[in-house]
């Protein structure tokens, strides 16, 4: 798993509605709904590496055999959509 520290990008508005998180990304302007596991991953990602996120989630979901791949896929997707960034880097947008 990549070792970059993750962060919530500057300028992204966040509204936590319990089980879900709604994000407004200013560039390009769009609303994103993250619910369930995606919301969990996003919340945990601030100031952690992908591995760090996985290490926390595996304690809660020890029986999910695909957890490592799921976390990597989810974080990579979020990086691509501008919902996460790496420390000292701009968000990598598709």
């Amino acid at each position, binding site marked *: 798993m990549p070792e970059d520290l993750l962060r919530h990008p500057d300028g992204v508005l966040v509204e936590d*509605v*319990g089980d*879900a998180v709604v994000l407004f990304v200013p560039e390009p302007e769009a609303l994103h709904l993250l619910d369930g596991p995606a919301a969990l991953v996003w919340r945990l990602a601030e100031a952690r590496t992908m591995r760090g996120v996985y290490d926390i989630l595996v304690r809660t979901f020890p029986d999910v055999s695909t957890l490592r791949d799921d976390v990597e896929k989810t974080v990579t997707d979020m990086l691509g959509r501008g919902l996460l960034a790496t420390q000292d880097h701009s968000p990598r947008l598709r």
Partner: protein
Amino acid sequence: MSRVASSPSRQSAVGDLGTSYEALDFRFAVTCDEPILGSRLAALFRPVQRAAAEALQAARQDIAIRRNGGGFSIEIDGILDPGIRTAGEVLDHLQWHVNSQVIDRVSQRGTGFHAAALQRDGVTLLCPAESGSGKSTLAAALVRDGWTYLSDEAVEIDPAAGQLVPYPKAITLDPGAQHLFPEVRPEVADTQSWYADPDAWGPRAAYVPSAPTVVLLPRFALGGGLLVDSLAAGPALLALAQSTFHFRRGPERNLRRLGRMVRTTPVYSLRYESLDLALEGVRRVLDEVGS
């Protein structure tokens, strides 16, 4: 033409006086030099007419309708709107113009929804929906059923207490819905839509300012039967955002207000293929929320 605000107790024909109106802080006055069209304009905007004393003090947009050849021209704050229109086209155009002004102003300063809204027995119902979804038809049916009318087009959220601020314009009934409301058929049918005075179905209880107690997302679907679903907060927020006027003009304030709303207010989707089923759906939702 003189421009003197009239008392709302007089059913003035706009042909002889300018009359002032207010729609969600958009203030405007209308004058018309042809009395029959003037009367129709007065009837169209009667639900948003202002009291004379208030009208005299407020800045407002001046809309003047003048005979021009075989039709009418429209002048807004002294600027001539291009085109000559029939009487029916004047009514359609002005209703569209006022709606546009309302939406523009609300979205610049606050949070407003493209929505119908009604109230009865302590329940304040907010029905955000896109054009063509049937919300005006649903609003008319609910008013006929005894509900107090707030709007079939737009409401603003008061930022302090989350209460709905109404825009009680004439209810717009499109051609596909007109056969359902023969009792409000206009005397002159030269407009694309019918503009029904909400008072046509009789007096209703006055609106008590309130935050919405239920949000209902209506959608007419031929052959769709009746489907009522409760929405989780996340999807509900996205659905409300789609009906928020120019969400991007104030993304932070809009996001916060929608978030607060979905955390505190039950949200349902209502898909229906007939008016009877829509009313049944509303009753089911109210039963479920215990109203």
